[in-house]
């Protein structure tokens, strides 16, 4: 398969969306980019499931330089951008087992509807009854012309199973409105950059169509031929549009090249993860969205991470008691791997210059990494492993760990909203917001 190179892409961009409405999906060019990039704010929320290994996650002391334990080691290069929040809890109660609430209340901070989906314990439940913070911020950005982007938010997934239930959805456009992540990079590429392959194909057939029109025309009367002549003109016009090398159309960043050989199967997860991260960074660089979520697997996910030498399913492992050293080690490795992906994302953002402004894209970005459980084998919603990475311009005071005590995570979402310029007073269940935003600045 040919890859998309920059020149080819620019050529393809010569087709205006108005000319080819059916080939829609071209990025909004330059509109926002032309404006200064200073003051731009972005949010990425990255999810990994089934709890962490607290012993290998939390540094021993909060004071001074953080001594990062094994799981967080990959983030060492960004240590000064890092803020760990210990003692934050998902306090949302109500229907649903703790995996369900862990997942579907994580970004919504509000209860699940009573419903018909039975978990491993507790009562059956339905979808979350409120909007998630990423969608809330998307709506906020999209409501203001200066922060509007083509998509507002993009929901990336990695190895998310094809099923829709409260364990697989964390983003909600509103009550009862789960948003499905896209876990196929090719599908995401199509969403971001339109059906470029179709354009290639279209170009390839137009000669044949022209020839055929000519052949058919010779059999017709002059009168009948007029219609085909008109038709031919339209084909030629389209061809010109398709092939016009419109050098005015400049993307800040070329379309990433995706390896077509990578299938959507478990053992390709590491490659798929990197493809998704590259697409995420690319979509930010071309300012298609200001909010992104990156969801690895799902709550209760049974991913078998062969690439780490682990044959057991992740969720099964997470139930093993602490004294099972083998499981303990494997779960540590699993979480290390997730952290490595976060580090890669951070690195890519830090290496990419912010369009229209000084510094890197990381400077304008806040990343939150989270998990639906504090610890897998006890299914606790307390002490969730929250990692915040705040760019230089985020206004967050990073390079430290803050300790709280069963503080509702709704307050964290207030802080994140404030960091994005959205002055929310409450989010999710108001009961948990009484004390206001967490002091992250």
């Amino acid at each position, binding site marked *: *398969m*040919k890859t998309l190179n920059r020149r080819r892409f620019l050529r393809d961009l010569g087709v205006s969306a108005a*000319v*080819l*409405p*059916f*080939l829609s999906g071209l990025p909004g060019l330059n509109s926002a980019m032309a404006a200064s990039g200073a003051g731009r704010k972005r949010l990425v929320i990255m999810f990994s499931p089934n709890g962490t290994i607290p012993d290998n996650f939390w540094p021993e002391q909060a004071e001074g330089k953080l001594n990062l334990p094994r799981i967080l080691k990959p983030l060492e290069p960004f240590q000064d951008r890092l803020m760990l929040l210990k003692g934050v809890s998902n306090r949302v109660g109500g229907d649903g087992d703790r995996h369900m609430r862990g997942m579907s209340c994580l970004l919504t901070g509000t209860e699940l*509807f*009573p*419903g*018909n*989906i*039975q978990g491993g314990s507790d*009562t*059956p439940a*339905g*979808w979350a*009854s409120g909007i998630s913070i990423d969608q809330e911020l998307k709506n906020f950005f999209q409501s203001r012309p200066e922060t509007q982007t083509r998509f507002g938010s993009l929901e990336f997934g990695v190895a998310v*199973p*094809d*099923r*829709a*239930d*409260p364990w697989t959805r964390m983003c909600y456009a509103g*009550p*009862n409105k789960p948003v499905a992540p896209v876990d196929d990079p090719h599908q995401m590429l199509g969403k971001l950059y339109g*059906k470029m*392959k*179709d354009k290639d*194909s*279209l170009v*390839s*057939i137009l000669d*044949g*169509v022209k020839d*055929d*029109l000519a*052949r*058919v025309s*010779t*059999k*017709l*009367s*002059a*009168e*009948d031929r007029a*219609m*085909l002549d*008109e*038709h031919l003109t*339209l*084909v030629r*016009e*389209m061809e010109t549009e398709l092939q016009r090398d419109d050098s005015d159309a400049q993307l800040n960043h070329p379309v990433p090249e995706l390896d*077509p050989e990578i299938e959507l199967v478990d053992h390709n997860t590491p490659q798929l993860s990197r493809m998704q991260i590259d697409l995420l960074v690319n979509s930010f660089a071309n300012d298609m969205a200001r909010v992104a979520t990156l969801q690895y697997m799902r709550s209760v996910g049974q991913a078998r991470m062969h690439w780490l030498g682990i044959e057991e399913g992740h969720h099964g492992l997470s139930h093993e008691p602490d004294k099972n050293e083998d499981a303990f080690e494997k779960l540590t490795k699993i979480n290390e791997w997730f952290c490595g992906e976060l580090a890669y994302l951070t690195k890519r953002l830090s290496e990419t210059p912010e369009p229209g402004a000084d510094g890197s894209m990381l400077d304008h970005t806040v990343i939150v990494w989270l998990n639906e459980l504090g610890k897998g084998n006890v299914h606790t919603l307390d002490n969730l492993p929250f990692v915040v990475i705040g760019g230089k311009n985020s206004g967050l005071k990073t390079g430290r760990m803050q300790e709280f005590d069963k503080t509702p995570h709704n307050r964290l979402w207030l802080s994140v909203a404030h960091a994005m310029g959205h002055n929310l007073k409450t989010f999710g269940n108001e009961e948990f917001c009484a004390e206001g935003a967490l002091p992250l600045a």
Partner: protein
Amino acid sequence: MGGLPCLCLAAAAVFGFVSTGEAVEEPGKEHPGFAIYQKLCTECHGDNGEGVAGEYEEPLYGDRSIASLAGRIDRTMPDYDESLCVGEDAKQVADYIYRAFYSPEAQARISLPPIQFSRLTVPQYKNSVADLVGLFMGGYGRPVGEARGLKGTYYGNYRFRVEKKSPDDDKKSERDRFRKGNDQTFERVDPVIAFDYGDGGPDNEKFSKDEFAVRWDGSVMVEETGTYQFVIRTRNGARLWVNNEQTDANKPGQLIDAWVAAGNEPREEEGSIFLLGGRAYPLRLEYFKYKELNASIELLWKPPHGILQPVPARSLSPERVRESMVVSTPFPPDDRSYGYERGLGISKEWFEAVTGGAIEAATYVTEHLNQLAGTKDGAADRDKEVHDFAKRFIEAAFRRPLSEEQRKQLVDHHFEGAESLEIGAKRAVMFALTSPRFLYPEAASGEVADSYDVANRLAMALWDSGPDSALWDAARKNQLTTPDKVRAQAQRMVKDPRARAKMQGFFHHWLELDRAQNLSKDSKAFPAFDEMVMADLRVSLDLFLDDVVWGEKSDYRDLLLADYLFLNDRLAGLYGKPDKVPAGTFQKVSFTNEKRSGVVTHPFLLSAFAYHNNTSPIHRGVFLTRNIVGMTLKPPPEAVEFKDADFDPSLTMRQKVTELTRAKACMACHSVINPLGFSLENFDAIGRWRTKEKNDKPIDAKSTFKTDEGTTVQFASARDVADFAVKSPSAHRAFVRQLFHHSVKQPANAYGVATLDQLRKGFESSNYNIRGLLVEIAMVSATHGLPEPVKPAPKPPEPKKPEPKKQPEPKKVEPQKQPVPMPAAKQSEPKKEEAKPQSKPQPEPKKPDTPPQPKPQPQTQPQKPQAPKPQPDSNQTKATEPAPPATVAKQN
């Protein structure tokens, strides 16, 4: 509707419609009428009746008889002194102009309209694409049986599992143990999906109240093309697939996903899908309850022109059909300036839609490539199979086989530059669907018609689509060369739901249902006339049309004379037949006392042709004049609005209209329109029977009608009008002409001056069989230009004069003379045994792997579809089995 203008027609612009069928010879200058015409008429009408700017601009042609013309000239011409041309002079002038240019025959002689080179209309395009892809799917288009409703499979657990009790049950969790009888299942057919189980379930004996599930399977059959909104109303979990065979719940493709409940309150989830009329689509609904208090499930829809209501049993079948590739890309509307939709004129919007549709279809094909090409991933010959599929697809799109040279030129090319087999196939499909040979159905034909042309034209005329596999078979065997064989195909095809859909489109056009689009009535005067009644009335009309057209007799006269309506309980209450119909169904109800008379008095039309608070004899009269009685009216030069408030409230509507149109200039037309309209005055603005107006004045529906021939007819009721029309050749001719145009989308005269009259005579002698008429119309189109001309009339008519068909310089550019029958791998095929081309190149008989022959489905049987087979015998025996279009799928 208060603002609708009264149609007031200028005297001289009215031409009645009487057909004679007599031979019309061109009059010379020696004709006595010529001199009079030159002297008195050319100043305003021009030398050849073409009209004169600033004087009388309308060309003089129409359908009046000579006697009728003479009467008119006598009374009204010339306009500055009617006495200058009367009596014998008037007759001579009438005779002259009739023969020189006025009559249809003269017009045809002067300028026979050509069969215009046309593109596919939008319905033809969308149907063709769907059926084209369907040719490669086994079982596609197989008709569904008589049974109605959906097949329900009921499970005693929410997982749709048939579970057996086992000794391990004790180890099961609490949750599993409490299930009662969770290994039970049963099946039944449910006519309508609308269940409220309360706190119980579908079977409280067999199932626990806490947990059960149902899967409803079958097909949904739609008549009209358009967007269908489906709605699930439930307190629990449900999901719906429509026109999607992929029913893995964990994959995308559900039209509605309402699987996760939110509380136990009823909620509605909806999804919309664009569907083509005249087809069935697979439908599956899954539903479950788990530990919730109450349970309920309803499947509703809002069809085009309809209202939200439970999907009725008559639209559901418990048999599953194959899915259809429906192009949903929006298209600009077709040209309707001729009074019917034609594939004339192209625009950028059209071209872009065609391109978008091609991409849409090609994407679908790529996604289903293994299935359509009859191969699978990793198969050793996948490459070859896909190439072969591409060739057959292009052949099917072009509606004729490709020669070896064409195959190289038009097929292989797409794979050469492609990055993958899929992209190659995609390009081939995109090419096929953007090529002029697909988009212009006659583009691939030579100047002499062959079996492929006949197959293509039959499919276009009867289905607005391309040939099905049975037609392909017949064409490949070159069997469509004699009228009998062609007619046999047409008679088979007319039974297909696609023909029904096309026929329904005709009736909607004929009855001007567009007019009912924004129907609304004064809610004070007609409080019961709500949107549900309007939707019911539309259904009632469609059921009536179906009943007549597809009933045993298919008699046109029943359309106008039937004394019954289809009513449901709601309509029965409103139209004076309370308690006649049980709830939930439509039934025939007779109206002998009220003189109901077919479509003439169908309440939907009576309502559409009326004001929002009163009747409108003018609208009704114009409709009857033009569409039922078959006389042409030209538009009025000025619009005069009917303003009820201008009249004395003690007058009847009839008196008001009489008053409004009593000027002499008006009466020339309104003497026709008004009597017809007045005959319907016994029906109020929503089509209910009445004997008095609102002001208690009695209704007078009697009138006197003057025919073109000057005879007088007394009408006492709507039925009298219908009786008159049923016996009127001009009414028949108008009906034939309109059906011809709708079906063939070319002017009937283009097929010969006598075409319409021959069809009309055949229609009359067939006891006005509508289906038969459609078949004969399709015959005219299909056999046009066949080496041996075929006559439309069932009785052998006189030999037709050779048609002055426009023949551009005939050129054979296509290298299709010597089709090389097969790719190298299939050389073992017997070849060249059948008749070689005679005078004109006849494509050779095809082997069984040509387009209409879908490969066996890989999932059914991993057979080797490749082996070249000699076709003849096995084919023929199979072809005689039931379900002809489907059998080919099963051959190998």
